[in-house]
């Protein structure tokens, strides 16, 4: 159908690469095009009107370039290489602040969404701290908080309180933040991590999973948003002031930077899975602070303890990390700094430090104020939060499937790998998984008796949705919401493919074509196949041999390369030529390869 379109490089890709890497040549790299083509099982022959650099050479150059860059940036490869880690043990505790998914704020009825972009448009008198205004707990905000607590396996406390944490800042109109310091509403949870979540083997110690304890979860207010206008002016937007947050505090059970990043990722995915916190780290809806300390192996550090875990070194806090990579990098930098100080005989001070992306070391922000400086006191304006057990039981019994369960189920039911399962569960808020399950159901149904086993169907559908469809969406820059293809259409394509009515190549072309049809009613896949005369008219054995011999005669040097130099990979080039030269919908690559191998005598 639109084969020519599929051959040209997507311009935006080359433009993007072009602008980010300063190279001497101003021509888009041919290798990107080749990679794109080869990912679609097309030939790796470079398209016309491009500088042709052999693919393999270019890949090698790329690898060399990346290594050189890494060395220049001074990034030390985390590996068995670091000998200091034999002597020093790292302990990390994570505090995550996540915005709750609610319609209104925590203590006022100002809405949390709508009227986007207009600053100071969703501010109640209490949010602006007008004298005499009182907080009013908005009951609906309890629901996502409860779900978060139950999803993280916490014990929900029947009675919890509201406390004021006093400090002056222009993003805090009241002069205090209402939080739950003395009596949080949920305590004693766990989050478990597997090796596939990114936990290094040293932390797993032979087990399948590790459990990181959660000390407590509390609800609190968010501060306003400020923007800095140099030299010293700040613009304040109170829309976010008073937005409900939950703070998830883990116990210091984490012993490596990768595990810490994995914990943050895991908690974010759990919170998203139960619709409690839906803005992720990249959008600023989830922030992490980490507490880092080191101690010499076999010692008790400085004897500090936190919440029952004792024998730790003095800890420092790194605030406001806003991406998973930042979490990992900041912990590595701080650990290295602390080890360097301690090995030189110095002492670690308890302080608060900051991290900017691309920095090599954390920077000191301020000394660690004691908790007493915040003058925590119960808020007299608010009654205690009393949560009924009937509500907790109801929420627990109606919990949706947690992400871990979903990933496990997708692996078992559809035979996807762990990585693919995780990807598809995360994409498009679960809509893509829904699409996949519906398509798989239709395919199973459509294939009827001669169906493959469920796992094979699952794998087929999964691959098509993740890689083929996904690739088309990204290359045409269409979002999932705007995608017109229905599960029925994809199922029809796959059924035809399985029944050998069309070749793989034709199937991909159909997919691409369907993506572009925006008229309604949409033609059915069968109709498209018939109209385009795409049904596989299998070539006979002689037909294959004839075509193969023709191509072999035309390129004797390639034949020589295979026969004499033994470059078996070039057989695929022949296959590509056969597919290209043969009539649409007649040449099957697998059969062509068999014939060619026989003819080329390999």
């Amino acid at each position, binding site marked *: 159908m639109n084969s020519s379109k599929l051959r040209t490089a997507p311009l935006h890709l080359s433009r993007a690469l072009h602008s980010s890497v300063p190279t001497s040549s101003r021509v888009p790299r041919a290798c990107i095009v080749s990679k794109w083509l080869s990912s679609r099982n097309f030939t790796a022959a470079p398209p016309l009107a491009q500088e042709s650099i052999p693919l393999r050479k270019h890949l090698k150059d790329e690898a060399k370039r990346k290594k050189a860059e890494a060395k220049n940036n001074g990034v030390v490869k985390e590996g068995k290489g670091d000998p200091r880690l034999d002597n020093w043990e790292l302990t990390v505790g994570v505090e995550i602040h996540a915005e709750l998914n609610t319609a209104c704020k925590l203590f006022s009825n100002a809405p949390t969404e709508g009227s986007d972009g207009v600053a100071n448009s969703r501010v*109640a008198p209490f949010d602006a701290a007008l004298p005499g205004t009182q907080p009013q707990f908005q009951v609906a905000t309890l629901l996502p908080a409860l779900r978060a607590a139950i999803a993280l396996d916490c014990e929900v406390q029947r009675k919890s309180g509201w406390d004021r944490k*006093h400090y002056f800042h222009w993003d805090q109109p009241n002069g205090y933040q209402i939080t739950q310091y003395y009596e949080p509403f949920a305590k004693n949870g766990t989050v478990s991590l597997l090796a596939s979540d990114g936990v290094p083997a040293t932390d797993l110690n032979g087990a399948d999973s590790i459990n990181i304890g959660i000390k407590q979860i509390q609800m609190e207010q968010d501060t306003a948003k400020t923007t800095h206008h140099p030299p010293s*002016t700040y613009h*304040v937007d109170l829309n976010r002031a008073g937005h409900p947050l939950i703070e998830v505090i883990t116990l210091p059970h984490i012993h490596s930077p990768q595990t810490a990043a994995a914990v943050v990722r895991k908690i974010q995915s759990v919170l998203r899975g139960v*619709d409690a916190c839906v803005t992720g780290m990249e959008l600023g809806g989830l922030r992490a602070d980490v507490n880092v300390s080191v101690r010499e192996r076999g010692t008790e550090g400085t004897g500090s303890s936190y919440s029952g875990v004792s024998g730790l070194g003095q800890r420092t806090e790194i605030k406001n990390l806003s991406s998973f990579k930042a979490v990992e990098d900041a912990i590595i930098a701080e650990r290295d700094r602390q080890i360097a100080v301690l090995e030189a005989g110095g002492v670690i001070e308890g302080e608060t430090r900051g991290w900017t992306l691309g920095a090599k070391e954390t920077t000191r922000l301020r000394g660690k104020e004691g908790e007493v400086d915040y003058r925590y006191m119960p808020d007299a304006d608010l009654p205690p939060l*009393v949560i009924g057990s009937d*509500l907790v039981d109801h929420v627990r019994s109606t919990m949706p499937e947690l992400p871990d369960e979903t990933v496990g189920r997708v692996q078992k039911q559809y035979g996807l790998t762990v990585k693919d399962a995780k990807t598809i569960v995360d994409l498009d808020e*679960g809509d893509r998984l829904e699409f996949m399950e*519906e398509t798989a159901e239709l395919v199973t149904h459509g294939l009827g008796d001669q169906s493959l086993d469920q796992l094979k169907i699952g794998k087929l559908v999964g691959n098509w949705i993740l890689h083929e469809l996904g690739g088309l969406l990204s290359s045409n820059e269409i979002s999932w919401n705007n995608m017109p293809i229905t599960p029925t259409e994809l199922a029809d394509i796959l059924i035809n493919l399985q029944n050998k009515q069309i070749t793989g190549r034709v199937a991909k072309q159909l997919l691409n074509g369907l993506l572009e049809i925006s008229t309604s009613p949409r033609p059915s896949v069968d109709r498209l196949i018939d109209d385009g005369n795409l049904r596989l008219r299998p070539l006979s054995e002689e037909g294959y041999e004839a075509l193969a011999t023709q191509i072999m005669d035309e390129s004797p040097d390639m034949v020589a390369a295979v026969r004499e130099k033994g470059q078996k990979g070039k057989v695929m080039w022949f296959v590509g030529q056969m597919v290209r030269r043969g009539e649409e919908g007649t040449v099957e690559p697998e059969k062509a390869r068999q014939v060619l191998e026989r003819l080329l005598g390999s």
Partner: protein
Amino acid sequence: MRLSSLPLRWALRRNVSLTPAHASKCRRAFSTAGPRHDRSNSAETGNVDVEKLLSEPTWSIASLLPRPDARPDHAPQLSSKQLHHLLRLSALPPPKDVAEEGALLSTLASQLHFVRQMQSVDTTGVEPLRSLRDETADGEKAETLGLEALQGALDGEEVRGKWHKRIRRPRAERGSGSEYGEWDPLSTAGKKVGRFFVVEGGKEA
């Protein structure tokens, strides 16, 4: 029956209204022991010497403030650094000169003495009062957030998907609805730029 087993108030009343002669007569009526002339043994016999009791104070309000002459040794001295730290925490201006700092420090010392006197009262087992609320069982029941309290929020959610069921709260459309409320928060602003409050973060006031 000994007189000391009777309520003290009754005994006091009895003794205060009586002349010594009359008192001894009454004592004879109720006590098995002989008449006593030693007033200081009032605890034994229930005979309280009220005048002696009231002649010397056991506590004075003056104890709440430090004595102007004495400097108690156990009270730690406040340093200037601590004073400045506290003033920063409270967003109060630092003292202009040494005299003002001295005055602030001595005021603070008196206030701390007062607080220490408060803290010397034994309050073991006493929960501090947070606010005046209905703390009865019925009151707590009325305050409990149960299923009916959250029913509105639960009803507002929808289930998304048939195979992969997820709970979703429908979000408001972008730009939907007019601006919330009728009052403009910026009307309270001293300084503003566009739709933003302006704060000067420099060191000068």
